[in-house]
């Protein structure tokens, strides 16, 4: 995935979270053959870096802290975990009912999902993922 060269680590973490959000959207533990994962991650990184600086700073800090946090709970940083364990880790954040966690989960879950489905729609690839839509 092309990332901002100044932030390769952040790019890897964002990609891992976005992959996990897409897996949640599709309800599956692998993304084999799923199109537009790279493009979605790329847009999400761009979105993150394009926010107002004080918002971006907070969300980047939260993203990196989340990545490191699974070292304690799962024995490895988030972006090194296999997808099923990443899904469980992200679900734990979604379960936390306070503002900062919700903002983090919304950014990757809702906006990541929107971005993914938008790519599919704009490239006439919805049927490839959904099967035939009505």
């Amino acid at each position: 995935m092309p990332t901002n060269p100044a932030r390769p680590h952040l790019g890897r973490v964002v990609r891992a979270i976005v992959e996990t959000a897409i897996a949640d959207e599709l309800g599956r533990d692998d993304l084999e053959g799923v199109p537009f994962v790279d493009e979605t991650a790329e847009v999400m990184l761009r979105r993150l870096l394009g926010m107002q600086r004080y918002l971006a700073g907070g969300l980047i800090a939260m993203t990196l802290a989340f990545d490191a946090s699974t070292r304690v709970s799962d024995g490895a940083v988030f972006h090194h975990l296999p997808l099923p364990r990443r899904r469980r880790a992200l679900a734990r954040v979604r379960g936390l009912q306070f503002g900062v966690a919700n903002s983090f989960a919304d950014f990757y879950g809702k906006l990541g999902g929107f971005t993914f489905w938008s790519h599919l729609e704009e490239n006439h690839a919805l049927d490839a993922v959904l099967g035939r839509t009505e």
Partner: protein
Amino acid sequence: MSRVSADVVVVGSGPGGAMTAALCAEAGRDVLVVEEGENFRIDSAPSFSLAEMDQKYRNGGLNVTFGQTNITYLEGRCVGGGSEINAGLYHRPLASTLEQWRDTTNIRDFGPASMWPHFEAVERECGVATFPGDNGPACALLRRGAGSLGWSTREIARFWRYEGQHDVVGRRQSMSETLVPRALRAGARLSANTRVLAVRHRGGRATGLVAQREGRRLDIEAKQVFLCAGAVQTPRVLRRSGVLHNVGDSLRLHPMIRVTARFPESMNDPVYGVPTEQVDQFKPELTLGCSYSSIPHLALWMGSDLPDKRDRLRDYRRTGIFYVAAVGTGVGTIRDLPVLGEPLVRLPLTRDDLTRLGEGLDKLGQLLFSAGAVEISNPVAGQPALRDRQALSNLCRALPQGRMAVSTIHLFSSCPMGDDDRVTATDSHGRVHGFSNLYVNDASLFPMSPAVNPQGTVLALARRNVLRFLGG
């Protein structure tokens, strides 16, 4: 450093700025329009698409007001401003709303009788139209549900142009299609990709603007300055310029909650675009309606932790996005963050707002279940969908702070107008108190909510103020 000058400099090319520029240019003034965003064609990206967000939304659509519940807000940042990205719904406010405005801040020469001719001109000149035929299945469902409860609905006209009876797609009549070209034809100049940092002023006169274009400083000399950059950016620029009196202290908005509802039969046809029917039974406090419901938008509002989301999206024609919008009671502030030059927006979603939104959501649920909905998504993050009216009513009695997605595209009142200078930032025609040639002419001027989609009111008010400026 570059330098440019004009008699009238208009900052922002959204509805307020475009109207100001068009009328000033047609009156023979030397006009420069300064716009922070790019100049895109109206069809450079599909409406409400990811590409459009990238091109035309400020910060890709990621802006929030801070409070116990953060509210996501959208701003256009392109030639045409918010008119390029909103639903384009057109309303006149109620006469009683305009009277309330007049009385609240003592607005001179203002009221329904003096404003209706400006609305009529907007309707005539800016391409306001209803659907040429049937306005789509989502609207029919809304009518049916409301009708079964004895509630009234209304098709809302849009800033749109349709070619014939069978054209359901039509063409948006945003500012880049209407008033901006009109201003340019009359000789106005447009400087896109130009960000205004501050107003230069001395002794109660604005002398020009400090701006930035392509990373380089641009000095703009001006005899008259109109700030029309919207309810967040206009006060940001004023405050950065040291103009503080009642500036950015009274922001208001229309908070909105969206849910998705699933039906046994097909009711969603995205080809119709934005559904134009609204329930007007509970106006002015509450508006109920249906949103554009493409698959990506459904995915956004359905929630991100549904095990069968893919099946639900496959079945997208049976699901729609519905909203309740309220006249918010919270009053917020806008501050310019030093060094960063970005606005910090704070606004409380009040207990009254939550009560009102809860009442609206309860009514919306009543309508949707009456229309046959089998399930309504839960607006509270992580909570299960609602399958009956009672479950929804229980939730609506006490909507929780901080756990719902609340959004808005209607922000206003951050530099209110009126002759009562204890509570206003400008006089009754938008001239900033203490200045002879510095004006505000956008939604910032509203003393309070218009209680309807505000674009029509911005245009009519801007027209009133500019004609006064040109005549007087």
